[in-house]
């Protein structure tokens, strides 16, 4: 098929770039549009050819080149399920304290997820200046507060749904609907992993159970199943990982050997069919994982001072036991990052028996009571994780990302002592490879209700994480159902201001 009209290869620009230019006058760039065929703009259009990684069938986790020099090699994401309130942790709003008990101006009739709003309500936890930067952080998370100089806050996050399921989908996959690939799946699809005996992407659910939107948070979506997050934590090993108890070790390895002979003889009849070679390779990788995963998950050789740092050795009360379990997941996360696992996702909070707010951050009814549990559970182990990564030099090439599906209201719900969902403004933070330290980007309004300055959408947030991994979010695509799909859909702009 010859191309009769090469001149029509006129360049397309993405819509955001177009708008940006439109702001300063159209100039010659708009000429391109004038020439463009109707509707060639947008959708997957990046103006650049998509860079689809070439996946070797037998080595889906082989390391692959990034689009440009990466700042971060690995990502460790901490996800607070249930929507952690920015107003009781990291987003200090003096005006909220001053107007405590008064209605929110202009929003008297506001209806949010669960209904009507009561008065503006200050956080029950006091905010204090932390570190050299003097960043105001609440007493709910003092250990994290002490690390303010390491962290890069984004206070102007904005979501687009106020429901947990779609919200977690959105933060984890860039789409509110079910069925899309998670950030970690995209990252490992693009980059593979540097370690070939561990899964490239590990999801560590809270020991109390899975997050509200369950496995969607680490789903492969329409990407090949190879890029699904492998699920395990310090309490629950990978399903079917270990040799079945009923099979003796020597029989197990003899069977593996016999299977390999069967497969090699079969493959010899189909020379050049890479799928068959891939299958043989997958059993080899599985055998290696069978050895390495239990090793990496075995925390018994962690020294006492490390266990103490995380609070992993504590007990005696429900809170301390819960915290210790989360702490062990944090240690596991560090060990995986240490081994070179590309993407690790740690969950804090689960949807479990007991309903809202009891085992996750969904504080509708009794903010003080609920967060008095969740705050301490999160605080010390997460802070220890940062300290530990730093002391091992791992923060140099690991990007730590803390996030949640959306924020909470500055008001209490009418007739209740808790805060309703609020996707209009919330906080996330990053630390480590490639991001500024002791820095805050963007802000919400005076009460912390809506992001107003330097708004960062979830797509922008994802674009930035991919950028730090050396990936152009506009060029990393996968064809599905009629579209070159991207993590960032048709939006997303790297938040340059947070880059170191």
């Amino acid at each position, binding site marked *: 098929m010859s191309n009769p009209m090469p001149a029509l290869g006129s360049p397309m620009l993405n819509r955001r770039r177009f708008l940006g230019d439109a702001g300063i006058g159209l100039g010659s760039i708009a000429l391109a549009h004038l020439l463009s065929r109707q509707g060639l703009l947008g959708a997957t259009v990046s103006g650049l050819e998509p860079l689809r990684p070439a996946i070797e069938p037998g080595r889906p986790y082989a390391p692959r080149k990034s689009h440009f020099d990466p700042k971060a090699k690995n990502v460790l994401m901490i996800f607070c399920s249930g929507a952690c309130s920015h107003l009781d942790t990291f987003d200090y709003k003096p005006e909220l304290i001053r107007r405590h008990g008064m209605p929110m101006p202009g929003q008297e009739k506001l209806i949010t997820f669960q209904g009507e709003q009561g008065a503006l309500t200050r956080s029950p936890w006091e905010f204090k200046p932390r570190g050299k930067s003097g960043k105001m952080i609440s007493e709910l998370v003092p250990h994290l507060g002490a690390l303010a100089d390491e962290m890069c806050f984004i206070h102007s996050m904005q979501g687009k749904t106020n429901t947990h399921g779609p919200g977690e989908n959105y933060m984890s996959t860039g789409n509110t609907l079910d069925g899309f690939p998670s950030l970690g799946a995209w990252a490992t699809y693009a980059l593979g992993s540097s370690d070939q005996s561990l899964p490239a992407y590990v999801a560590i659910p809270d020991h109390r159970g899975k997050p509200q939107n369950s496995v969607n948070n680490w789903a492969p979506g329409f990407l090949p199943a190879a890029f699904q997050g492998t699920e395990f934590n310090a309490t629950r090993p990978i399903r079917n990982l270990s040799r079945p108890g009923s099979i003796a070790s020597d029989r197990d390895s003899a069977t593996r050997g*016999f299977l390999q002979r069967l497969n090699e003889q079969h493959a010899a009849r189909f020379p050049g069919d890479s799928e068959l070679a891939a299958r043989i390779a997958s059993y080899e990788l599985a055998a290696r994982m069978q050895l390495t995963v239990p090793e990496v998950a075995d925390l018994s050789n962690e020294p006492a001072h490390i266990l103490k740092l995380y609070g992993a050795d504590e007990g005696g009360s429900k809170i301390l036991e819960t915290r210790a379990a989360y702490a062990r997941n944090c240690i596991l996360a560090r060990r995986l990052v240490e081994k070179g696992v590309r993407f690790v996702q740690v969950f804090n909070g689960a949807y479990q028996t007991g309903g809202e707010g009891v085992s996750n951050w969904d504080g509708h009814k009794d903010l003080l009571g609920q967060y008095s549990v969740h705050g301490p559970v999160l605080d010390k182990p997460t802070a220890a994780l940062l300290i530990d990564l730093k002391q091992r030099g791992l923060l140099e090439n690991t990007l730590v990302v803390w996030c949640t599906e959306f924020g909470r209201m500055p008001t209490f719900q009418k007739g209740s002592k808790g805060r309703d969902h609020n996707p209009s403004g919330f906080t996330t933070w990053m630390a480590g490879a490639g991001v500024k330290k002791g820095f805050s980007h963007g802000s919400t309004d005076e009460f912390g209700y809506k992001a107003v300055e330097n708004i960062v959408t979830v797509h922008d947030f994802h674009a930035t994480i991919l950028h730090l991994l050396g990936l152009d979010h506009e060029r990393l695509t996968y064809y599905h159902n009629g579209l070159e799909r991207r993590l960032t859909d048709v939006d997303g702009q790297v938040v340059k201001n947070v880059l170191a």
Partner: protein
Amino acid sequence: MGAAAGNVGVGWKSKDNPAGFPRIFAKLDPVPRLMLTSSSMTTDLRSRIAIWILSVVAVVTSSAAAAIAATPDTSTLPPAATRPVDFTREIRPILERSCLSCHGPEKQKGGFRVDSLPALIRGGETHAPAILPGNSANSAIIHLVAGLIPDSRMPAKGDPLSSAEISTLRAWIDQGAKAPDVAQVEEDPIRSHWAFRPVQAPAVPAVSVPAGAGANRTAAASNPIDAFVASRLMQDRLTPSPEADRVTLIRRLYFVMLGMPPSPEEVAAFVSDRKPLAFERLVDRVLDDPRYGERWARHWLDIVRFAESNGFETNRERLNAWRFRDYVIAAFNSDKPFDRFVREQIAGDALGVDVGTGFLVGGPVDIVGSPDPTLTLQQRADELDDMVSTTGTAFLGLTLGCARCHSHKFDPISHREYYSMVALFSGVRHGERALPLPAGRDAELKRIDSEMAGLERQLARFKEGANQTNGIPGSAAAATTLRPAVDFAINREEFPATEARWIRFTVLATTGSQPCLDELEVWSGNVNVALASRGTRATASGTLPGFAAHALEHINDGKYGNNFSWISSESGGGWVQLELAKPERIERVVWGRDREGAYRDRLPTDYRIEVATRTNEWRLVASSADREPLKTPVAKAKSKVPVYRFEGWSKAEAGEGRAALASLESLRKQRDVLAKSEMVYAGNFGSPGVTHRLHRGDPMSKREPVAPGTLAIFRPLNLSTNASEQERRVALADWIASPDNPLTARVIVNRIWQHQFGSGLVTTPNDFGRNGAKPTHPELLDWLASDLVSHGWSLKRLQRQILISATWRQSSRPRPDALRVDAGSRLLWRFPPRRLEAEGIRDTMLAVSGNLDRTAGGPAFYLHEVDRENVYHYQPKERFGPAESRRMIYAFKVRMEQDGIFGAFDCPDGSLVTPKRSVSTTPLQALNLFNSQFVLDEAEQFASRLRREAGGKVSAQIRRGWVLAYNREPDRREASDAAAFVASQGLPALCRAVLNSSEFVFIP
């Protein structure tokens, strides 16, 4: 150069651009290429453009009258300049500065855009056409920029055009509104894109079939499929492969068509069948095998994103959605004509096949309710988008969903047309619906009714109250005056204080549908002891599934109103029971259907309230018997049950009475079963209401109302806004299922081909638009499509034709020469081998181990333990028994959560449509097959089967194992290797290895 103009710069494929991603985005050119000279066009293209220009002129002429009629006073217009005007130098800058930001690629206010000449001339939703070439004085764009149209001066923002600019613009229009360098940019997609052109059967190429085609040359020469394939192979100097051996053929045939291997006996019979047309007869038998429907329904269910849970975080079960799965299986098995199959899925309710519309609501739905109106509108918009998008991809191979926020970037689907399609579905709601009773059921019910009436007459004298007053409160006999009729909002039932631990509210009839109670309060003094917060536990006969707002927990959550109410699963009946934390002295029960007064339906009209201090010692404390009847139609699930008393009658009389009562009871039970409608998750249909275009897809940005309709690509359907709900879907179904629709037949033919060969003739099965891949064999695709339509849309016939082709029967062995030219075997120089899908692997293991339960149809079995909290969680089972030994298509299809073993084999979860599964090979698959208890159990069972069927001799066991698992005898080396292995590790270990082996899971 077949489709020159349809191919302008997009969508072609090449080695380094395998999916045909538009090359137009290949690189960002720093200096935009502005010139497009006619010398770069082919003659073909030039003539197409000429045609196009003629059609534009025709449009302009026909609408000119209207435009002129509305002409305002043009005398004030600046005169047209007299010099020749150059578009690029003079006009384009004006458009860029003043128009483009609102009428360009980013926004198209009023549906108008100036970045392509045809669009500029055509105009928007109003003031169209914008330009009458040669007639600037009457061109709407001039009136607009000159401010002649009140309140519509353009540009709406920024400085108005100067007189000089208007003069220039007028001159350009008067000189013919030409832009020699850009005019060609927009071609007519409807006529130029291959998939939008009418299907016409091309001539079958005359090819001499190369010797390589082997034994079946006669068939090859006579099957047009082979002629098309051979002719394409020849272009690349490739030759087909010889026919595969018979064992391979039957194994391939069974895997592809039935999803599991043949039995050793079936293989032996076929291999030794020396009569002519042995394979053809085998194909016929296979197509008649009921396993065929089970296998092929799975493919269709992927395409229509079928699953049995709601998805999103609540992920509740749809307990009767399986009927749609069974319907699809039956449709394949009965070779339902495909056009009929299409119609039934879109409008089955109009065709007496209600279950078909399970298609419409097969997708995920977010049932989390909120008073926040934005959320509710967004959820509804998402539901409708799922219906429109799935209809588009499944039947038309078009990504309609792309036009939700803006006009489609590649295909002729406008933003407005998308909402016309939405309007076709806007009366469809998620939920279950009662199926009509089967034919003949009425007569049967009448017979039972008359029998029951006879028995009731016999029993009349024993009826409570007939000859005695028993004093039970609530009975008609005890009441002197009747209480007022039941009230929708609130009903207070007072009775002498009594001790109770359990309170049961039984509904015997309602005003219609399943009864609803928004709250059931039980008062002890001034305390409502029923509240869940006091430790009271509620149970019920059944709860309407799928609605968080109507979950059982709402019966005693202290919240009033419809959004916090319980609805029974049973139409006209059901009970709810409260167990108090401790026995209480109660004196009042208060209940209502909707305390907020908004709903006037589902009200219990006939009910009993009983209490107990010990289980099963119920005492009636109140009932509807002493109430006035409600003056609205009452739906009775069961006739009111009178109480009969036999005390005080003679032994013989009482005995007679008791016998009559027993017969009556048994008939009643029989009647209840027969009269009960079966429910299916197939949606509910209500008023479609008014559909609006939503600006940028935002449900809060409603724009003009849109009438129901379809795309302009083919005889567009334009319905009136008054069209009834069903009428809309019937019209759509007819439009899609029309033999003249250029897409429907092509798309299904391609899907069939894809599942028979592993890859379609078009590798983007859900995108036949301009961004999709082009067919490898366009003529073959069209020939098959036209053949399908002209033979009554029979899919079995189509499949048979493919199966008996020499192309399908080729060997799958790789050949280095051919691999070098066509590594993906896309040109079909061999049969491309591939891995079985998740379901195929599981089914095959069960079949080979001898454990497969062939029970077909009915409710699903579960691969998960279900944690039925407010949010449902599904934990993959670790141990399986006989209950889980049916084919995997009968497993409860959960969204989000995968089966713990086979999910890792790229098994989709029905959240999105999956036209083509990815095939990945991962270590988790290996771990699951090698270590899971399921596979170990199957290996044990397989080993016992071998001992049972082959006796104690190891060599015989091995032979039997190979024949069962691989359909072939082991060669000498394999046999001795296996014997040595069994000697040291035992037969189950051998079976474990075989079930894990590549040969076991590959379609040869």
